[in-house]
């Protein structure tokens, strides 16, 4: 008996030793598994995308704890919990997945909502019996009995919730909950990092003001759209280039804050006029690009452009003021052989054409438009070469006193001699304006005219040297160097400012009234005279005319050509009278016939120029005319009887002196 008791004691002792050993082994294994899990989650958190990090983590945890189903929720900034679509094991529970993904939860509602409030892991045992839970029924049907939810923490914020399910009823495991909280923090770090990367990516591909895709992203979107093009398709992909008309004026008048507000409004209006999958981006300033895929050919394009035009129609409200803006739209249709940048350039070209036909127009790009653009580019390159080389000339057209026939001034006109032939000014002057070349060319003309004036002054045979009229473009007026250029060209050749008449069109003050008027005032202050060129063709209101520091107006040739029309005659009559009333000297342009001359003399128009007297001539051909002061006396007095006897010819300075 004693032996048996001893045996039993020995056996019990061995058993106890084994239990102790089992326990410590188990703790060790648990600890190792926890470490492994955390390390795996740590690695998962470094995955490139959040989706992959979540998927990897879910799979790891489910494997670790033998959970049948895992799912991740994202807590959005609007406070709504929505499925990330990341699941593990969902193939066994399709109905439960569907029920879950249809849900949008808020804090406090459902397991994930409770986790958000609790800010820690929660264990729900036999949770399908908790009928207040939104998915209790779905869980019961799926046979899921135990659930755990734990938060993904970014700093102190819950940014997501992971939930795990099993069909077994499991008792609460405090150690596991603690471990899962650590997992949630680890995952949160990944979310933080990815959010900052997303932010960076967004910043690199989006416009900060409107939040729209920028050029980089539009190019990408276009690239993908091009790769999806199929030749046999009835549908097409269109690229729209939208540019606001007159936005610069709004921006300059109201300031950038107001301008930015309008751009945001424009972006929103464009968005509403597009289909959800159309790509809308902002290139810069007031330029927007839209990529529309799967359009039902032309009809689809027209629908979209009309919707855009309509969307722009209601006035924009900024700082309690209402503004009307229109958009010029250029459209091109994507072809597989074209690069994204080429398509954007085509749409831009079309937009440019649209703008030329007025505000709020739409133009579709064509190969013809493209070849015109190429010709234009070619010409621009050539003009650049001409400005740098020796192909530009200045010709001079006499400005004649219509009462005595004396040449009182000459208008300096730039000519381009290319390969021995003259390029028409209408061809290259607008081009020079657009390209900005006009600033350099205009400066050169100023200097050349001043040099020529010096020669005429030095010519002993020219009794009264004429004043020189030089055209100034809008671009030149915006050139901060203008005043210096004018002053330099005069002083370099000993010219007097009063012998320089600077011609500007009404449009110079249309773009920016105050700035335009300020420059003109400075030129006036320098001592030069100002003439309003092409008078009557612009849109300047009479109130601007009142403020215009001019001493002469040049009546546009189009009025002179139509003088036999009674209405035109009435207008010219009024112009001459208006000029006189404002103390300005009227100068008629484009006089070609004796009749026109006679009529203008009858109206009392002081000065005139035109082929009837002389076409623009090279300086050496003009010199003989200048040497003969009575050259045109017979023209102005002969042929058609003058209505009034000739009066004394004004000296240039007096002619242009303001009579106020």
């Amino acid at each position: 008996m004693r032996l048996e008791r001893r045996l039993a004691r020995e056996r019990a002792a061995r058993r106890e030793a084994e239990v102790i050993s089992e326990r410590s082994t188990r703790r060790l294994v648990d600890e190792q598994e926890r470490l492994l899990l955390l390390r795996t989650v740590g690695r998962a958190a470094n995955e490139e995308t959040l989706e992959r990090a979540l998927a990897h983590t879910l799979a790891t945890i489910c494997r670790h704890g033998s959970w049948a189903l895992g799912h991740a929720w994202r807590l959005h900034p609007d406070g709504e919990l929505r499925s990330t679509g990341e699941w593990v094991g969902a193939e066994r529970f399709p109905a439960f997945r569907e029920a879950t993904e249809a849900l949008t939860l808020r804090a406090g509602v459902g397991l994930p909502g409770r986790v958000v409030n609790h800010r820690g892991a929660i264990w729900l045992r036999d949770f399908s019996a908790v009928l207040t839970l939104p998915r209790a029924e779905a869980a019961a049907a799926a046979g899921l009995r135990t659930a755990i939810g734990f938060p993904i923490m970014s700093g102190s914020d819950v940014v997501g919730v992971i939930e795990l399910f099993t069909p077994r009823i499991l008792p609460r495991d405090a150690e596991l909950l603690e471990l899962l909280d650590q997992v949630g923090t680890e995952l949160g770090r990944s979310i933080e990092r990815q959010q900052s990367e997303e932010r960076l990516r967004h910043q690199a591909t989006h416009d900060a003001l409107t939040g729209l895709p920028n050029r980089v992203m539009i190019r990408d979107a276009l690239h993908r759209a091009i790769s999806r093009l199929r030749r046999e398709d009835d549908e097409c992909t269109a690229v729209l280039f939208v540019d606001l008309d007159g936005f610069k004026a709004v921006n300059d008048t109201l300031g950038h804050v107001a301008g930015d507000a309008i751009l945001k409004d424009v972006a929103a209006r464009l968005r509403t006029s597009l289909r959800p999958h159309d790509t809308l981006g902002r290139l810069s300033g007031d330029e927007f690009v839209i990529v529309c895929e799967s359009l039902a050919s032309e009809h689809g394009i027209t629908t979209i452009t009309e919707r855009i035009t309509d969307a722009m129609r209601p006035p924009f409200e900024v700082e309690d003021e209402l503004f009307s803006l229109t958009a010029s739209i250029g459209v091109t249709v994507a072809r597989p052989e074209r690069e994204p940048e080429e398509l954007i350039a085509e749409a831009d070209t079309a937009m440019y054409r649209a703008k030329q036909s007025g505000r709020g127009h739409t133009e579709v790009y064509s190969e013809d438009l493209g070849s015109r653009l190429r010709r234009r580019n070619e010409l621009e390159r050539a003009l650049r070469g001409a400005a740098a080389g020796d192909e530009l000339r200045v010709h001079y057209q006499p400005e004649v006193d219509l009462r005595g026939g004396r040449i009182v001034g000459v208008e300096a006109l730039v000519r381009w001699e290319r390969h021995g032939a003259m390029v028409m000014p209408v061809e290259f002057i607008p081009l020079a304006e657009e390209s900005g070349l006009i600033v350099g060319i205009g400066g050169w003309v100023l200097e050349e005219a001043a040099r020529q004036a010096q020669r005429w002054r030095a010519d002993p045979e020219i009794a009264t040297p004429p004043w020189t009229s030089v055209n100034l473009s809008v671009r030149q007026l915006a050139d901060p160097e203008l005043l210096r250029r004018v002053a330099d060209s005069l002083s370099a050749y000993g010219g007097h400012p009063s012998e320089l008449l600077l011609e500007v069109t009404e449009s110079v003050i249309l773009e920016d009234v105050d700035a335009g008027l300020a420059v003109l005032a400075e030129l006036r202050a320098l001592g030069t005279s100002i003439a309003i060129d092409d008078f009557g063709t612009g849109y300047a209101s009479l109130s601007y005319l009142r403020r215009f520091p001019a001493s002469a107006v040049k009546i546009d040739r189009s009025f002179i050509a139509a003088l036999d029309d009674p209405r035109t005659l009435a207008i010219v009559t009024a112009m001459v009278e208006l000029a006189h009333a404002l103390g300005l000297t009227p100068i008629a342009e484009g006089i070609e016939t004796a009749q026109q001359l006679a009529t203008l003399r009858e109206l009392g128009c002081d000065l005139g120029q035109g082929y009837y007297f002389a076409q623009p001539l090279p300086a050496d051909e003009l010199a003989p005319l200048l040497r003969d002061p009575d050259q045109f006396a017979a023209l102005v007095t002969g042929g058609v009887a003058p209505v009034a006897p000739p009066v004394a010819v004004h000296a240039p300075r007096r002619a242009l002196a303001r009579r106020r």
Partner: protein
Amino acid sequence: MKGIIFNLLEEIVVRDHGEDAWDLLLDRAGVDGIYTSLGSYADADLGALMNATAETVGQPTDDAVRWFGRNTTPLLRVRYPDFFTWHTDVRGFVLSVNEIIHPEVRKLYPGAGTPSFGFDDSHPDRLVLDYRSERRLCMFAEGLLLGAGDVYAEELSIHQPVCMRRGDDRCQIEISFKR
């Protein structure tokens, strides 16, 4: 084979037949009898012990293995009550083997080669286990299941339409629950 299995067999034999019976079995099987729960021992030792048991009681080895299994389950309940108290019936208990019990077993006994079962629990009155193991201990599994019936006081009947010991590629243990 983990030492715990041998310990359990020893416990049952000693409890039902006394200290000497165990020594007798060890001698008949020709094994040294030094088994500690955490150690790993040759599978052949268990085979020899079961054959010796069958010989001693004059029954087929299969019956002896099943008897051993059936007596093991209640002892496991004593040693590891949690695995049992989480469930209210045999079905729930059995279904937790793969996901709960065996992982836990592997924690207690690192290196334990626990089998994995395939389940078909689509029928309310039946549960089918797919068993694949080099050890071919389907009879032990049958016994453990019968023992679970004893623990949860359920009447079960078990049969194997498919069995590796009859040349099939796996065993299929079908448990029918009587209500």
